[in-house]
């Protein structure tokens, strides 16, 4: 059976991609943030996962309001990135995966999830920035990626509890897949931030710390927040915590945290990074 070997949380903001494009990793503004990644890169280098399931949200590259999925899952052999309109460099195509993807889709439908199933989508910075962070120099094409896209834009959004349940269903699907491949799961985005409105700029570092603690020890506590509460506590885009919860759901049992970093502000956000392994 396929095996989930670990979970990674990471920011995915465009500013990170732009900083990498410009070689700013060691500048005073960025060095503490990028210092969080070498331990994760080393672990990935040792473990060599075959497949990464990446929970992200599309920020208006592919998923427009004309036909906006609550949950979308990719089953394509590859994914292109493209111009998002404000200057982040596009990255080379991401290698996809079709067998485990379809198996997951079958299991999701069997267990009363209603995903939109995607055989041809573009992926935006929500997915590409994490890949660039984990594999500098865009050395990620050896790994197969399954994108799972969660609506974090327009209310109503899937509830934190539903996102966690989605992750659990995907985790069980991986466990029932007849293969000896190793799977890593990424929860991307967050943590507290708000881009819009007169309240723009709010960061809640205490809450971010609570999230990182509870994600390890008691993720179900986090699933009791409503999205409206997350907006109030963590800012309008603080709902990106939902991708972390979906990732954590995949890990099914108890986990231990082997690495953590947190820096705020990074651009307008609290930027958290964790490496979690199953107990």
């Amino acid at each position, binding site marked *: 059976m396929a095996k989930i070997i670990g979970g990674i949380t990471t920011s995915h903001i465009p500013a990170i991609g732009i900083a990498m494009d410009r070689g700013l990793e060691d500048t*005073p503004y960025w060095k503490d943030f990028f210092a969080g990644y070498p331990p994760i890169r080393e672990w990935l280098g040792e473990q060599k996962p075959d497949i990464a399931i990446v929970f992200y949200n599309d920020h208006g590259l592919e998923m427009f309001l004309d036909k906006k999925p609550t949950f979308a899952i990719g089953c394509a052999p590859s994914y292109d990135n493209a111009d998002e*309109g404000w200057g982040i460099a596009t990255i080379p195509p991401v290698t996809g995966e079709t067998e485990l993807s379809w198996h997951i889709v079958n299991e999701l439908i069997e267990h009363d999830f209603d995903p939109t199933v995607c055989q041809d989508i573009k992926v935006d910075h929500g997915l590409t920035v994490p890949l660039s962070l984990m594999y500098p120099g865009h050395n990620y094409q050896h790994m197969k990626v399954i994108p799972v896209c969660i609506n974090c834009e327009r209310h109503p959004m899937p509830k934190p509890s539903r996102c966690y349940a989605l992750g659990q269903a995907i985790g069980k699907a991986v466990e029932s897949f007849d293969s000896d491949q190793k799977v890593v799961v990424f929860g991307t985005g967050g943590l507290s931030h708000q*881009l*819009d*409105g007169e*309240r*723009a700029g709010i960061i809640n570092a205490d809450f971010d710390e609570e999230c990182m603690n509870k994600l390890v020890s008691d993720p179900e506590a986090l699933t009791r927040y409503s999205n409206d509460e997350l907006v109030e506590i963590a800012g309008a885009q603080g709902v990106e915590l939902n991708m972390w919860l979906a990732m954590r759901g995949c890990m099914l049992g108890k986990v231990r945290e082997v690495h953590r970093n947190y820096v705020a502000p990074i651009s*307008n956000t609290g930027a958290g990074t964790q490496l979690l392994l199953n107990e």
Partner: protein
Amino acid sequence: MTDDKNKTWGTIKFDGPMATKGYALNKMCYSFNNAEAREEFKQDEAAYCDKFGLTPEQKEAVINRDILAMEREGGSIYYLAKFAGLLGLNVQDVGGLQTGRTTEEFQAYLDSQGRGKNNG
């Protein structure tokens, strides 16, 4: 039905009715993923707004770069970010515009809430 909108101060909840109200504006801003569309907008902003059927209020907000007004008229920050990018503004510039601060003041506000780096 009760209307609990905007119960968080300074936050316009982008929900269904707002998505209905803002559809044309968001569709226009979504088009800015495309470089040719960005050029076409720059050539004649008003004509480009009309092409997408913006309301007079939406069009005025666009012409005036009034981000808050665009949000009140149903603009979603995801697509407005592409408009901001077209104008050469980053997310701190946009934060400043919305909060009545200079970009430097907005960055100082962000820093004031920070942790890690120089913030201990």
